[in-house]
């Protein structure tokens, strides 16, 4: 009976414990009390259902997430970011990159026609993805779009060797390979498909502070120091110039404009930026060589104005050869000049003269010149200098002349650009030329130029292409197209 009572006693205690009521263990039989103690610790015992259910939950979660965990969300061997490039002829582009950049083809999905829907190339440690054009999917090439706003940057072991290989494969030099203040040796090349590649080899570690110092010093020289060979290109921050232009742009007028455009492309690696042909067959084109712009106009019966250009490119001998291959005639073969450059000269098939030069590394002065610098050959250079000062606020930078006043060589700054000149000394000279000149206020400059002796051909007029233009002839036979950019929205 004692046990029977102990069983009941314990059950009473258990009932109280489960109901979370206080139980006085001392009032119980000691054996019952120690069992009640165990019961107290058992309170909150988890149910089997809960334990099983949670296990199922965790296991289900595991099996569901298992396959996901096994797939690397960022596939091995791929950098986080890759360019996805579009080409008007993707198979040709792949061949080009293999030859020019030593690219390795990783993958290619092509239609039966050969049109590439997706391909991947490995260049060094990078992967580029590419396809042919699919206009329905917004895949359009730079050739269709008229350029690409994105340039590719490529680190290479030996930038000079790399550039040579690329040029041999058909790339064009846009900016020569040069040592840069930021410690890299680099330049820019354009592939035949409309993409520009900045290629660099790190030569020296330069601190950011040091770079900033250089940039600050560079900025202080603005607007007069040009973005000389290989330096950081100076963006025309002036709102009165069209993007990419400087104050002075030579305007070459020839009957066979397409022929000249082809020549500057082949010989000098020029990039055609713009071309339009009017209903009467007149043409206007704009090409870029290095950081410089060149305008080419033409058409049947146009008054030709052959121009002389001082052209700075990295490898004068190669450029000279290319120019001859492209149809130029030699004026003189490249030779080292005592004034600090190696230069040669050619005349292109349409009559323009190109003084091609590569400055010696130690030579400082060409750094203020751009790739393309206009070279006047007037009769009476001091008079032209005077006119430029009076008409356009030009500033004489240097003049090398004989005691009699015969100018061998002079440099004059107009706006942010420098033009050169040397007295006419050749039967084909004086070579009057045409110049497209961006000025801050075309109306004011027009008045000033007329006062300085210019002749009006066209008073300031708004043009549909966004510039306000005036046209004057100077007393030396040169034609000046004065312009202020108003913006395309106006």
């Amino acid at each position, binding site marked *: 009976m004692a046990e029977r009572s102990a069983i009941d006693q314990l059950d009473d205690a258990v009932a109280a414990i489960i109901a*979370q009521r206080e139980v006085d263990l001392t009032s119980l039989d000691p054996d019952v009390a120690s069992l009640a*103690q165990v*019961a107290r610790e*058992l309170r*909150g015992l988890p*149910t089997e259902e809960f334990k099983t259910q949670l*296990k199922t939950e965790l296991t289900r979660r595991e099996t569901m997430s*298992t396959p996901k965990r096994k797939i690397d969300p960022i596939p091995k061997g791929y950098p986080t970011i890759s360019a996805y490039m579009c080409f008007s002829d993707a198979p040709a582009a792949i061949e080009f990159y293999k030859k020019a950049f030593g690219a390795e083809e990783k993958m290619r999905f092509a239609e039966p026609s050969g049109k590439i829907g997706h391909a991947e190339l490995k260049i060094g440690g990078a992967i580029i993805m590419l396809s042919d054009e699919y206009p329905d999917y917004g895949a359009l090439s730079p050739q269709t779009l008229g350029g690409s706003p994105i340039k590719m940057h490529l680190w290479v072991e030996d930038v000079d060797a790399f550039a040579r290989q690329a040029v041999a494969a058909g790339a064009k030099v846009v900016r020569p390979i040069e040592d840069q203040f930021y410690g890299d040796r680099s330049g820019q090349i354009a592939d035949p498909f409309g993409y520009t590649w900045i290629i660099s080899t790190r030569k020296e570690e330069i601190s950011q502070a040091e770079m900033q110092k250089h940039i600050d010093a560079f900025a202080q020289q603005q607007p007069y120091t040009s973005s000389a060979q290989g330096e950081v290109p100076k963006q025309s921050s002036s709102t009165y110039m069209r993007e990419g232009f400087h104050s002075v742009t030579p305007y070459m007028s020839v009957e066979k404009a397409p022929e000249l455009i082809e020549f500057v492309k082949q010989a000098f690696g020029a990039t055609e930026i713009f071309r339009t042909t009017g209903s009467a067959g007149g043409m206007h084109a704009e090409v870029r060589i290095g950081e410089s712009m060149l305008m080419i106009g033409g058409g049947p019966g146009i008054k030709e104005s052959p121009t002389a250009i001082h052209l700075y490119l990295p490898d004068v001998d190669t450029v000279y050869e290319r120019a001859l291959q492209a149809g130029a005639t030699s004026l003189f073969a490249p030779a080292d000049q005592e004034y600090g450059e190696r230069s040669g000269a050619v005349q292109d098939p349409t009559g323009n003269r190109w003084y091609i030069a590569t400055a010696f590394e130690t030579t400082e002065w060409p750094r203020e010149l751009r790739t393309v610098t206009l070279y006047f050959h007037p009769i009476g250079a001091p008079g032209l200098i005077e006119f430029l000062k009076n008409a356009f606020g030009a500033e004489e930078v240097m003049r090398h002349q004989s005691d009699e006043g015969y100018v061998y060589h002079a440099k004059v700054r107009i706006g942010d650009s420098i033009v050169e000149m040397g007295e006419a000394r050749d039967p084909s000279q004086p070579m009057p030329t045409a110049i497209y000149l961006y000025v801050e206020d075309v109306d004011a400059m027009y008045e000033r130029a007329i006062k300085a002796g210019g002749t009006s051909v066209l008073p300031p007029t708004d043009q549909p292409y966004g510039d306000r233009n005036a046209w004057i002839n100077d007393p030396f036979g040169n034609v000046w197209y004065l312009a202020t950019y108003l913006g395309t929205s106006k």
Partner: protein
Amino acid sequence: MDGARLGLSRDNEFEERLSIEAAQKDPGRFAELYENNFHRVYAYIARRVHDRSEAQDLTSHVFHQALANLGKFKWRGAPFVTWLFRIAANSIADQAKRKAREQGNTETPTTDNHAETELEVSERRAHLFRAVDKLPEDQRRVILLRFAAEKSVREIASELGRSEGAVKQLQFRGLENLRARLSDKFQLSNTNG
């Protein structure tokens, strides 16, 4: 907290490390770690949280967290369960804070002043919970229905088709057995559960 106090021998420790590594490589192997630690975690939580559904929610949370973060677990000599306890302690504290905010209650949650004692008590309780599974089947069912399902003797009697007296007797025998299993390993104490 050393392994011996938690009843972990060197062999157990070795086994546990293998289980962890296996689960880190293949989350499907987490079940082993769960089985080995469920009662410990549950006991630890139930000691502080007296509401059953809350204790279940927290336990569930701890294991889900552990599974999600298993890759980050690094063996530093402490038993795996101490990592689970840390997750549990944080979860309890978070929950308490949340509740305090909801109820405008400024009472701070109880903290561990004697962490080692706490762990030991939890371990002892986990041992007790596990021991229930080893009881003879009819005792096990009664203990589970009574303490886990919190049913009355009458309800249990009708569910099992036994008399109330028989149920009370099975309860008595069950608790006797549990006391014996507990005293095999731990001294019976007056620790309040």
